C-alpha cells in the first residue's frame, strides 16, 4: 500500500501577485507499515503535503502513485483512496457533526456502503481502540472535552479501516496525560493493525519518542528524511528553520561539553538515562550507589 510522490510541485494562486510555491519538487516514498513523523515551522508546507496524500489537493505538476497507480489518472477511484488514506485534521471539533458520538463514527463506514449494523460494529471497535468509554457513546459531540473530541475524530477515520492514517497535530491543546494516552494508542494501532502512521507534530519530544522515520519540511522542500536520531543531530540547522531538537538532546550536548562522555545523540529520557548511568558506572564515580540492576528498564 505504498504512496510515491514524484517531482510534486504545488503553487497557491498561480499567476497572481499572491503566488506561493508551497511544495517544490517533492520526491517521497512511503512504504507499508512505517511510523513517520513530519515536522516543519508554520507555513513550511506540511499541511499542503499531507493533503496531497489522499487527493484533497491536486498537484500543480508531478505525479502521485498509490500502489503504483497514478491517483490523478482519468477514472481513478479517488473515493476508495480517501477511505484507505484517512486524515485527521488539526481541529477535531470541526469534523464532528452528528447528534451523538456513535452516529458520528458510523458516518464513514455507512458512506462506504455498509448497513447501520455493520457500521456500528466498526464504530464500536474503533471507539474502543482509541479508549473512548461506552457510557459516553450517546453524548453529543459538543458535550465532550478536547481530548474526547480528538478520540472520536480519530475513531471516525479508523472505522473506515484505513491502510494509512495521517494525523495533523493530534495532541495540540491536550494535557500531558491526554497527549501520552492518545499517542500510546496510536502506537498500539500501528503495532496491532500494521497500518502506516504519518504524524505531523510541533512537539519534538513526542516525535523522538514514537516515530521511526522523520521528514523535515522547510520552505516547501524536504530538507531531511532519516531516523529521528540522525535528523536531531543536525539541531543547529533545525534551529535556523524555526525548529529545535528535543530538550534531552540539548542536555546531553551540554553534559558532553562539560566532560561527561555521554551519547550526545540521545533523544529520549530513557536513552539519556541509560547513557548517563553507563558513563557514571564506567567512571566508577562515587555518585553511583545503586546496583547494576537499575540499568535494565
Amino acid at each position: 500500500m505504498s504512496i510515491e510522490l514524484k517531482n510534486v510541485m504545488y503553487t497557491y494562486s498561480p499567476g497572481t501577485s499572491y503566488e506561493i510555491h508551497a511544495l517544490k519538487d517533492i520526491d517521497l516514498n512511503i512504504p507499508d507499515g512505517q511510523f513517520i513523523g513530519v515536522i516543519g515551522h508554520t507555513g513550511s508546507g506540511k499541511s499542503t503535503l499531507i493533503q496531497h496524500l489522499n487527493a484533497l489537493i491536486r498537484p500543480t505538476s508531478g505525479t502521485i502513485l498509490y500502489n503504483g497507480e497514478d491517483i490523478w489518472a482519468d477514472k481513478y477511484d479517488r473515493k476508495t483512496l480517501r477511505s484507505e488514506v484517512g486524515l485527521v485534521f488539526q481541529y477535531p471539533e470541526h469534523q464532528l457533526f452528528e447528534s451523538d458520538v456513535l452516529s458520528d463514527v458510523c458516518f464513514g463506514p455507512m458512506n462506504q456502503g455498509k448497513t447501520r449494523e455493520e457500521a456500528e460494529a466498526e464504530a464500536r471497535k474503533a471507539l474502543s481502540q482509541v479508549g473512548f468509554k461506552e457510557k459516553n457513546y450517546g453524548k453529543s459531540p459538543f458535550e465532550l472535552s478536547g481530548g474526547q473530541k480528538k478520540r472520536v475524530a480519530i475513531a471516525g477515520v479508523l472505522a473506515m479501516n484505513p491502510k494509512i492514517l495521517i494525523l495533523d497535530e493530534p495532541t495540540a491543546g491536550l494535557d500531558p496525560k491526554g497527549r501520552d494516552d492518545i499517542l500510546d494508542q496510536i502506537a498500539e494501532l500501528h503495532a496491532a493493525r500494521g497500518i502506516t502512521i504519518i504524524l505531523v507534530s510541533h512537539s519534538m519530544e513526542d516525535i523522538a519518542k514514537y516515530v521511526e522515520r522523520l521528514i523535515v519540511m522547510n520552505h516547501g522542500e524536504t530538507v531531511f528524511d532519516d531516523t529521528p536520531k540522525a535528523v536531531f543531530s543536525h539541531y543547529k540547522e533545525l534551529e535556523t528553520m524555526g525548529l529545535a531538537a528535543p530538550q534531552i538532546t540539548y542536555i546531553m550536548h551540554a553534559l558532553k561539553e562539560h566532560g561527561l562522555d555521554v551519547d550526545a545523540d540521545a533523544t529520549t529520557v530513557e536513552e539519556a538515562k541509560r547513557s548517563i548511568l553507563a558513563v557514571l558506572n564506567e567512571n566508577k564515580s562515587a555518585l553511583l550507589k545503586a546496583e547494576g540492576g537499575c540499568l535494565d528498564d
Partner: protein
Amino acid sequence: MGIIKAFKLGFDYLKYDEDGNVQDTQRAVNDVNLDIEAGEFVAILGHNGSGKSTLAKHLNALLLPTEGTLWIDDTVTSQEPELWKLRQKAGMVFQNPDNQIIGTVVEEDVGFGPENMGVPTEKIWKRVDESLQKTGMTAYRHHSPNKLSGGQKQRVAIAGVMAMRPKCIVLDEPTAMLDPNGRREVLEAVKELNRQESVTVILITHYMEEVIHADRVYVMDGGSIVMEGTPKEIFSKVDTLKHYRLDVPQVTLLAHELRKSGVDIPEGILTTEELVSALCQ
C-alpha cells in the same frame, strides 16, 4: 492586598432544558482562594477539564462567581456595574490566534482596544507604537495579520491587550497551537512585559518548560487548587504531578529517574545548567 484576590470562589455551569428550567448544574470551580501580588508571574497548571479556563475567565470578569468573591484591583467583580472597566485592568489572550484578531492591518488591530475605550486619536497611535515595540512587532505594523505566523499573531494579540494598559494580563494556553519558534517568541514577549513593565502575568499552559521561570505555580484538579509553590517545589513532586495528569520538564524527569537509580543529585532540577553542575562536579 494583591491585584487579584479570590475568596472561596465557586462557579457552576448550568444546563437548561427546552423550557428554560435549570436541568443540571456542574461545578467547574470550587473553593478557590488566590492572592496574586502586582508584578508577579503566576502560572496555573491542570489537566483538560480541571477548571483552569473557567477560573481564568473570572480574572477579567468574563464570568462572575456563583459563590465567593473575586477582587480585581480592590473591586469586587460581581458588584461592578461597568464590567468593561475591569477588563481594561485585566486583559486576556486566548489559545487560538485566529479567533482574536479583527483588524485587517496589524496596527489597526492593536489600536482597536484603546479606540473602543475612547482614547484620543494621537494617544492611540502612541500606545500602538509602544505596544508593537514591546512585543517586537514594529516591523510588521503595516502587514495583514493573515500573513503572519502563529507566534507573530499571538504577539499582535498581546500587543492589542497591552495597548489598553492593563495592570494584569491573563494568557490561556497562548502557545498550544504554535511551532517551537513561535512558542519561544511568545514566551519571551510575555517575560519581557513582566520584567520591564511590571505587568502581572497569569499564564495557563500545558507546557511544563514554560513554567520554570514563574514566581509561583498553582496546580488545579477538579475545580480546586491542589498544589501551590515555587516551580522548584512543585516539580520536585514528580509522582504527585503524574497523579494529576501532568508532567515535569524533561530535564526534571531525567534527574528524577537518575535519582531513582541511585545517582546522588537533588530533586527539583529545573534547567540544563543545574543538571550539568550536579553531574559534572
